[in-house]
């Protein structure tokens, strides 16, 4: 009876299976809390009160900001309304030109307004405009 040796036939499939299992275990461990969760946060009564005060102060602060913004919007609307009404009294021609819808003007500029970032770009402002 003769034996035929085939290289790595015995070991390779087993190693691949282990590696695969290890990979799965690692990936599962990343998305589960076991052994990774910190201890529960137990606040003392005074710390709890401090936390509640901070949270309340923040919500008050935001409510004030919101109220201020809403008031500003109301004032802006009223200001526009007053201006247009005054225009109607003074110059009906301009009033008509102003109140006729014209979609061209409200088109957002191409490549236009830049979103503010935390730090400025290297070229802060482009002083030369492209000729049209």
């Amino acid at each position, binding site marked *: 009876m003769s034996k035929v040796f085939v290289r790595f036939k015995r070991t390779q499939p087993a190693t691949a299976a282990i590696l695969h299992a290890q990979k799965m275990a690692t990936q599962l*461990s990343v998305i589960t809390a076991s052994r990774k969760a910190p*201890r529960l946060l137990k606040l003392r009564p005074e710390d709890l009160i401090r936390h509640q005060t901070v949270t309340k102060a*923040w919500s008050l602060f935001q409510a004030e900001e919101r109220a201020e913004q809403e008031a500003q919007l109301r004032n802006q609307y009223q200001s526009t309304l007053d201006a247009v009404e005054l225009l109607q009294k003074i110059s009906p021609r301009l009033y008509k030109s102003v109140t006729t819808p014209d979609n061209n003007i409200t088109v957002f500029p191409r490549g236009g307004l830049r979103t503010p970032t935390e730090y400025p770009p290297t070229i802060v402002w482009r002083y030369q405009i492209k000729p049209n």
Partner: protein
Amino acid sequence: MIRSGIRTMASVASKENTKVINSGLILSRIPIVTPDLTEFEKKYYNYQSELEKRLMWTFPYYFYFRKGTLAERRFLKAQKYPVSKQPGVWYPKGIPDIRQNRERRSKQDVILPKEQEDINESLEKISRPVVPNPRTTKADETGDLTSLERKLSRTLYLLLKNKTGEWEFPTFQLKEDDALLHLNAETGLRTLGGKNINTWTVSKTPVAAYENNNGSDITFFIKSHILGGKFDLQENDTYSNFAWLTKDEVKNHIKTDYFNKVDCLLSKV
């Protein structure tokens, strides 16, 4: 019917002639960087971020660094390890509760191994360290009011100083019979500040009306943004100087009743 119609037209026309109509332009440069945080905001955000770090799961470094690699070794070397629990030792700050090299009672500081730093490396090199540009510019240091690069975190408004020494928003009289408010303001701006300016007029509807003291002179304000180029004051008879100012500075420069008219139109950021 027809007669009365004609009469009203005539009366309106005569009324129009008595008043001088100007179109004013509120030209703004929007902020380039995010608004500066107040002291309270800073503290609150810091508090929240510390809370979040305290409640964060332990960083699974084994997921990011393969076992036995140089990268893993460098990472592990850079970490600061907490005090471990030993039998018969008294710990003044409580008994350590360590799992996966993390003290579970406090936040975990994940320290990234430092790459070699060389700020002077050329801009072409993609692996150079990230160095953010400063939020204050040269114009802030020199106090140059005419620069568009000052106060990056605030909205700037263009103000002009007329020959009588008073500051005001650019104001242009409607001269032709068929002139429109927003077009008049745009062409006026270009004759005053040169053609090298790119603006976007938000709407042709005026946002405010300001009557001069005697009431014979009315300015209707149009809102616009500067997108590129710059305002370069040309030789003219009406204005002698210009400045890009924030809302607070605008308040100090113009008359109170004038400011009250435009107060709600200017951004506090």
